[in-house]
């Protein structure tokens, strides 16, 4: 009996699941900060925390990859799948390490739906708050993974050894040190 109910539910849902993200308004009660982003809409809602590979293919580690996989949210109200693009920190940090500790759990997130590119058939999501707490979760695990760099003063992205290794090899433009040197000289004139 239960199998039939679930089967019928999924069958009935299929048009909903295949439809583009709805224009539903989730702004009520949102305290999200209004970053100047294209197509922004405040959105506070309950969602299940998943990793994208798990949701799409069924390859599901218990910890959602511990922050190393791209995380996503399945919105409770309508089942919409939203890729978590960014957290609340202002220095190039994603939201994976913020969300992974909640793998498989239902949380209340607050943030911004983002994007209005005509080639984008749905919205992306900036997670600013999780269960009322600021999504500031990138730095601590970054320091744990980069013990020496984490002790240095300054922004993480200027101290990250993996980034610096690439820049030392191919420059800030990625085109080699010769091209880099000539262009930097022009820019600093």
């Amino acid at each position, binding site marked *: 009996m239960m199998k039939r109910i679930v089967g019928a539910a999924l069958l009935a849902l299929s048009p909903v699941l295949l439809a583009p993200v709805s224009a539903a308004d989730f702004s009520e009660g949102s305290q999200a900060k209004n970053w100047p982003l294209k197509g922004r809409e405040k959105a506070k809602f309950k969602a299940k925390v998943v990793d994208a590979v798990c949701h799409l*293919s069924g390859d599901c580690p218990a910890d959602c990859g511990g*922050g190393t996989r*791209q995380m996503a949210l*399945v919105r409770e109200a309508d089942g919409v799948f939203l890729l978590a693009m960014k957290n609340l920190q202002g220095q190039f*940090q994603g939201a994976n390490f913020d969300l992974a500790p909640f793998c498989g759990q239902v949380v209340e997130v607050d943030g911004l739906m983002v994007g209005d590119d005509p080639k984008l058939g749905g919205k992306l999501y900036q997670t600013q708050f999780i269960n009322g707490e600021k999504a500031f979760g990138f730095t601590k695990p970054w320091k744990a993974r980069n013990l020496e760099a984490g002790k240095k003063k300054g922004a993480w992205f200027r101290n990250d050894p993996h980034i610096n290794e690439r820049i030392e090899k191919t420059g800030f433009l990625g085109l080699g040190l010769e091209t880099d040197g000539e262009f930097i000289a022009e820019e600093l004139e």
Partner: protein
Amino acid sequence: MKKLFFAAAFALGGSGAMAAQGEPIEVTGEIIDTWCYFSGVMGDTDAVVGSAHHTCALWCSAGGIPVGILTEDGTVYMVVKWEGNASVADGVALLDIQSHTLTAKGTTYVRDGINYIFVEDVVADQGIVNQNHEDFGFIPSGPVLKTIKGKLGQ
């Protein structure tokens, strides 16, 4: 009854049981930072790609922001797996291909209007083809130039 439908889908969504067959695909395009590209936070789309934006792309990829493949017709595929590795947000996995134009084979999924790709094989890597730094300078100029000056001891 409506609640039951959503409850069923929602419960399955978290377990991975929503997984469905993807479609095989071969795609050619530029590896981009999708946050800067779609949010407009650093400027127009022409400026937040290529060599002009290469350093920022490194920063964002290392920060775990989703990387995408931007094709010639403007379609973007969100990369969630790369040559068998699902840990694409570990801060290292995708650094060496930032801003490159490449051809990849894999599997694509479409969910709620967004394209996702599991890249299985890189067929060709042309390196950085989009050399737009003469047009735009460094993007974002302030943070990149500050970093450069710091390295030069200025």
